[in-house]
């Protein structure tokens, strides 16, 4: 009998065979291990994303929600309040607003590359993706530069779950609480010393004449740090992995960096770091003959929709000429990733520099250590041998 256990290390390592069975044989599947339904076909996921009234985010959007988070962040609020809150935050993430990050990302990438100059191999995660992401995010939020390392470690830990107990372990909850305390301190700091930054803007913002509650500001900042650090460094790592595995594509990008944006889109489709999010049904809903009940949770498996041959031809082929418009690498609907412009820009600029200085590289490990997470997917270490 087919099972789909998003806590299983086998799914962390390679979810794609499971996704195929889900799409072909169980397009609306009840996962006992996850205690929720799983939608895996592209069309079904898009339909759910476009119908926030039925598929609500107000009970949390992470597969394993963190305590007291739902309802206090953008991703866990439904319209119309969501839209007002998003309007406040979006301004900091528009294309125009993030344009100023080009030079900081370039400088940061080069500092990281200077540090490994002359090495025959290095860990892309520790030596490049996490360094660059933390560096740039601290700049974006204008955070004090001490404890960069600790912030990064906690951001990575808080998105994980325990594969044995099938829930967040004490260390994951503690990391989340640490980040909440950190965010609260940053909010206190900006209250004392307002600046021209996102945290100050959130503190001063009003929705329908009401200021955001301190907890909303704090949880929103916590989430932005988590997404900015963990999701972005996870995606940079997946992109590097794709380029290590597909040397023809990599050589084309190194020879013609103008192709990098197309390759980024294909990697977002091929193996996005944000594999699965969840919604909660607001009414009984029938999909493929299965009745899902009001109150049931539903997993939207973006990573499965992105490999659906009903939408993408030869979906298991990595093809940088594909230009996969409408992919689910950033989710979709009103909760589509807020940081798309930031992520695209940071990835493009970081890899322009990376490929200039490291045009030839290859994987060292045959088997990668994968992060234990029901929501995100990326290796915790990626050793690259350089020519």
């Amino acid at each position: 009998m087919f099972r789909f256990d998003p806590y299983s290390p086998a799914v962390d390592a390679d979810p794609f065979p499971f996704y195929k069975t889900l799409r072909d044989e169980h397009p609306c599947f009840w996962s006992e291990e996850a205690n929720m339904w799983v939608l895996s076909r592209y069309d079904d996921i898009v339909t759910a994303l476009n119908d926030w009234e039925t598929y609500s985010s107000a009970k949390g959007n992470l597969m394993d929600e963190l305590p007291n988070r739902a309802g206090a962040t953008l991703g866990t609020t439904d319209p119309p309040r969501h839209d007002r809150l998003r309007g406040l935050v979006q301004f900091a993430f528009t294309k125009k607003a993030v344009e100023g990050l080009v030079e900081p990302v370039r400088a940061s990438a080069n500092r990281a590359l200077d540090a490994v100059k002359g090495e025959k191999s290095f860990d892309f995660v520790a030596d490049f993706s996490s360094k660059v992401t933390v560096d740039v995010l601290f700049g974006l939020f204008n955070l004090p530069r001490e404890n960069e390392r600790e912030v990064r470690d906690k951001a990575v830990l808080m998105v994980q779950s325990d594969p044995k107990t099938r829930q967040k372990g004490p260390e994951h909850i503690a990391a989340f609480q640490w980040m909440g305390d950190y965010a609260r301190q940053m909010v206190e700091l900006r209250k004392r010393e307002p600046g021209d930054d996102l945290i100050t803007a959130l503190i001063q913002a009003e929705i329908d004449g009401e200021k955001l509650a301190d907890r909303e500001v704090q949880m929103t900042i916590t989430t932005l740090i988590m997404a900015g650090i963990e999701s972005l460094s996870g995606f940079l790592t997946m992109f590097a992995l794709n380029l290590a595995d597909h040397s023809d594509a990599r050589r084309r990008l190194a020879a013609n960096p103008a192709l990098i944006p197309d390759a980024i889109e294909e990697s977002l489709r091929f193996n996005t770091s944000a594999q699965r999010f969840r919604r909660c049904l607001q009414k009984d809903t029938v999909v493929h003959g299965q009745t899902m009940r009001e109150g049931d949770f539903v997993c939207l498996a973006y990573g499965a929709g992105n490999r659906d041959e009903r939408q993408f031809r030869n979906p298991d082929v990595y093809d940088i000429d594909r230009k996969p418009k409408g992919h689910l690498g950033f989710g979709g609907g009103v909760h589509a990733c807020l940081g798309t412009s930031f992520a695209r820009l940071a990835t493009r600029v970081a890899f322009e520099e990376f490929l200039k200085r490291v045009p030839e590289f290859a994987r060292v490990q045959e088997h990668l250590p994968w992060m234990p997470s029901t929501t995100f997917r990326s290796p915790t270490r990626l050793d690259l041998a350089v020519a």
Partner: protein
Amino acid sequence: MAKVTFIEHGGAAQTVDIPEGWTVMQGAVRNGVEGIEAECGGSCACATCHCYVEEEFLDRLAPPSQTEEEMLDSTASERRTNSRLSCQIKVTAALDGLVVRLPEAQS
């Protein structure tokens, strides 16, 4: 379903079927219409799904909310009297045959 025709700035036209209840922007993104960016995913927070609605359909639409009005002031291309954000136009049977023109730039 309603048929909606998107005419790009260069003149290329694409007609797509959009389910009732979806927004015009959602239909555009689902069908890969070039010229609609929809950076914010439809929460009326970015003005990159700007379109010009053909005059005959204008009064069939609910008027723009205050938030949409504010966002329309910051479109990348010129705001005209028939400017709307396509994420705020819900498709109904009455909109079958809708024609929208897309601006030169969204961002």
